C-alpha cells in the first residue's frame, strides 16, 4: 500500500484522488474494563467525504479523537499517508468543533493568521511586520473571502453569529491545507436555515480544494446529503449484564453515488441512529 514503489503514483503521498490517505488496522480503544471501540478496520481514500453517524456513546467521538491524535489506540494501528500516527495533534489534520473552535481574543483575521504565524515565527508565534506578514495577511484574507467573511476581518468572535464563527473556524483550519479535515458536529448548534448555507459552503470547499473530510454528525440526513460515504458506528454484540464488555465498530459502511445521496438514508439505518 502506501510507501510502496508503485510507479503510477496513485498510492503515494499527496497522490491524485483515490489513494488511501487514512488507514485503520484492527483498532481497539479500551478504558480499563470498558471497551469503546473494537476491531475498527477501514481505509479512507483521498478526496472522500466520510460522514460518521451512530447513537450516543457508540464511539463516534472517540473515532474522531483517534484521527485527531487527541488519544491513541489501545491496540492496532492508524496510518496517515502510510506513517503511523502518534497520539498528538499536528497541522496535517485540521479540525472544526461544534463550539470553542476559534480564539475569542483574536479578530477574524488574527484567528486565520494564527496558523501561518506559528509556522513562520517559532519564537513569538507572531509576525510583526514586513513582507512575510503581508504575504500571510493576504493569504488569510483570501481564505476569509472564500468562506464569505471578507467584510469582517477585524471583528471579534463574540460579535459574530454562530454561523459566522463556524465559517471562521473553517477558514482557520483550511489555511493550513490539512491532509484531512475533521468536523465534529460542526453545524449542531446552528439554526436550520444557517445549517443549509453551511452545507453549501462545506460542500463547495470540499470540491474546490479537493479536501478529504471526516464529519461526525447526529443528523442522518446531513450525513447522506454531504457524504460520499457513510459510516455508522454501533455495537455488534451486546451483553445486558456487562454493557461495557463489547465495543462499537463500523457496522454500516457504504459509498454513496449521486443517486444514493439524493435518495437519502435507507430505512435500515433508522434504528441505528438516534
Amino acid at each position, binding site marked *: 500500500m502506501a510507501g510502496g514503489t508503485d510507479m503510477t503514483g496513485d498510492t503515494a503521498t499527496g497522490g491524485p484522488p483515490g489513494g488511501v490517505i487514512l488507514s485503520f488496522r484492527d483498532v481497539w480503544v479500551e478504558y480499563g474494563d470498558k471497551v469503546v471501540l473494537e476491531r475498527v478496520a477501514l481505509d479512507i481514500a483521498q478526496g472522500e467525504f466520510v460522514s460518521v453517524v451512530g447513537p450516543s456513546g457508540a464511539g463516534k467521538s472517540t473515532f474522531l479523537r483517534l484521527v485527531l491524535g487527541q488519544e491513541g489506540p489501545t491496540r492496532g494501528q492508524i496510518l496517515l499517508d502510510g506513517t503511523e500516527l502518534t497520539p498528538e495533534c499536528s497541522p496535517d489534520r485540521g479540525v472544526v468543533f461544534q463550539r*470553542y473552535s476559534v480564539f475569542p481574543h483574536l479578530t477574524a483575521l488574527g484567528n486565520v493568521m494564527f496558523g501561518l504565524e506559528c509556522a513562520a515565527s*517559532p519564537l513569538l508565534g507572531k509576525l510583526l511586520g514586513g513582507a512575510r506578514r503581508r504575504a500571510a495577511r493576504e493569504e488569510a484574507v483570501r481564505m476569509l473571502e472564500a468562506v464569505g467573511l471578507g467584510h469582517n476581518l477585524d471583528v*471579534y468572535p*463574540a460579535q459574530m453569529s454562530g454561523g459566522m464563527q463556524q465559517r471562521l473556524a473553517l477558514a482557520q483550519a483550511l489555511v493550513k491545507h490539512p491532509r484531512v479535515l475533521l468536523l465534529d458536529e460542526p453545524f449542531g448548534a446552528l439554526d436550520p436555515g444557517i445549517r443549509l448555507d453551511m452545507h453549501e459552503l462545506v460542500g463547495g470547499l470540499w470540491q474546490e480544494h479537493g479536501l478529504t473530510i471526516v464529519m461526525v454528525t447526529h443528523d442522518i440526513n446531513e450525513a447522506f446529503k454531504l457524504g460520499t460515504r457513510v459510516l455508522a458506528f454501533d455495537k455488534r454484540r451486546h451483553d445486558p449484564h456487562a454493557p461495557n464488555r463489547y465495543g462499537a465498530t463500523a457496522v454500516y459502511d457504504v459509498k454513496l453515488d449521486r443517486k444514493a445521496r439524493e435518495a437519502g438514508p435507507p430505512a435500515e439505518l433508522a434504528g441505528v441512529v438516534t
Partner: protein
Amino acid sequence: MRLVNIKPARGVRLLIAAIPILAVLIVYAVFSTARAEANPNDKVLPTFVAMGQAAVRLFTETDPRTGEITALADTSASLWRLAMGVGIATLSTLLLGIALGVVPLVRAALGPIITIIAVIPPIAVLPILFIALGLGEASKIALIALGIAPYMVRDLAGHVAGLPAEQFVKAQTLGASTWQLTLRVALPQALPRLIESLRLSMGPAWVFLISAEAIASDVGLGYRIFLVRRYLSMDIILPYVAWISLLAILTDLALQTLSRKAFPWAHGGGH
C-alpha cells in the same frame, strides 16, 4: 409590579446611591456638632472643620523633624511598598499561574505545595519575615506578596486550565508548539483574569501593608494611624482612612480602565 422587576434609570440610580452616603455624613455631622458644643476639646468625634484643618496641616506643613510633608511622605512610602509587593505577586502569578494552567506536569509538581502555602495565614508568618528579612522594607513587601500571591496563582491557574480544551487542540492542529500555545492562546486570555483577581486582591494587600506598618515602621499611612491612636487623634485618623479609601478606589478604577482598553474582547465586544 414585582420588586425584582423594578430597575432604576441612571439618574434615579445615582440619586438613591447618594442617599445612604449623605445620611451617614449628616448623622456624623449632627453628633459631632453636639459633642463639640458640650465639650470643645472632644477628640472622639471631631467636626468636619477640625478634620479639614488637620488634613490641610498634614498635606501642606513640613514636619520639622524629618523635613518632609507628613502625609506625602507617608503616602509615597506606603504606595512604594504596596506597588513592590503587588508587583512581585502579579509577576509571579503570571509566570506560575500560566505554567500551572498550561503544563500538567507543572500542575502535578507545584499544585499541592501552593495549596498548602495558600492556607497559611500570612500574618502568622510576619514574625518569621521580620526575623529573616529584618524590620526594613523587605519584610513588609514580602508580607504583601506572600499574602496575595497564593490566591492569585490558584485563581489564574484555574482559569487557564479551565479554558476550553478545544482551543488547545485547535492551536496544535494549527501547528502551535507548547511555547506558542502559552504565548498566544493562554497568556492573552490570562491577562484580563489576572487584572480581575488583582482588583480583588488589592483589599487584602492594603490590610497586609497597614498591619506590617503598624507593627514596625517609622513612616507610612498605617504607621501614622497607629501612632496617633495613642493621642486619640481622630481628626487625623479619619482623614487618613478617607485618603486610603480614595487611593484604593482610584487604583481600582485604573485597573478596570486598563482592562477595558487593553482587552476589549473580554468585555463583550470590541466596539
